[in-house]
């Protein structure tokens, strides 16, 4: 569906609060625009973003049309254990894009 870009620090100390940055390329079509012959362009936005840390959900966002194209979301989490962060974006057409990043906690 789309290209993604994830930034998670590869290493962290136990208990450290780390910043996670995510970006996905998506038009985020609002459904309010018309094309050059006046036909409404159907709505197509990413409406859900979920991040899990070793299977536990740590962040979830419900997105609406007011989110700019190519949604960029940053948030924080506490580095508890080494493992994988999984990212999942779902759009109006039910298409799902995933990405993951590893983190080593010492």
């Amino acid at each position, binding site marked *: 569906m789309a290209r993604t870009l994830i930034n998670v620090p590869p290493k962290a100390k136990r208990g450290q*609060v780390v910043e996670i940055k995510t970006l996905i390329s998506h038009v985020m079509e609002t459904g309010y*625009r018309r094309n050059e012959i006046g036909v409404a362009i159907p709505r197509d936005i990413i409406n859900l973003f979920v991040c899990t840390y070793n299977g536990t959900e740590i*962040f*979830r966002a419900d*997105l*609406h049309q*007011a*989110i700019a194209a190519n949604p960029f979301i940053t*948030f924080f989490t506490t580095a508890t254990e080494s493992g994988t962060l999984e990212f999942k974006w779902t759009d109006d057409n039910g298409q799902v894009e995933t990405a993951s990043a590893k983190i080593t906690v010492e």
Partner: protein
Amino acid sequence: MTDKSYPHPTRRAVLVGAGALGVAPFLMVRRAEATPETMKAAIHRVIGESPVKKGRVTLDIPPLVENGNTIAMSVAVDSPMTEKDHVKAIHVFNEKNPQPDIISVHLGPRAGKATFSTRIRLADSQSVVAIAEMSDGSLWSDTVEVIVTIAACLEYN
């Protein structure tokens, strides 16, 4: 002084006429957009009847924006983010976009820090409201007035 055959407009008639003229254009040009009332309805739908207090939330948006299509926005909530006392969700609303909702994020004690940022669209100069839902059920908010010079949603392809 006045000619009886010519009905002179009374002060009341003039005021009523002027009022009608003044109101009519607003009724005609009203577009499909969220209004402060629809924003209130959206807030009510999401958080219910509970009272919302001002404070603890910092909504960071530049007060003057050139391009309404991408506006950096971040929300920070003052919370220790422990199991007992943390932010459950942060909701952001607007007044004048076609839809009043912007984003709802759900987090928990594992976030460590109740802060997130994203990029939003604004169709007009308006106020944006962020509401944080705490684990004890209390609600806190912050409002920012944003002036937008080039609005989003206006371009046709």
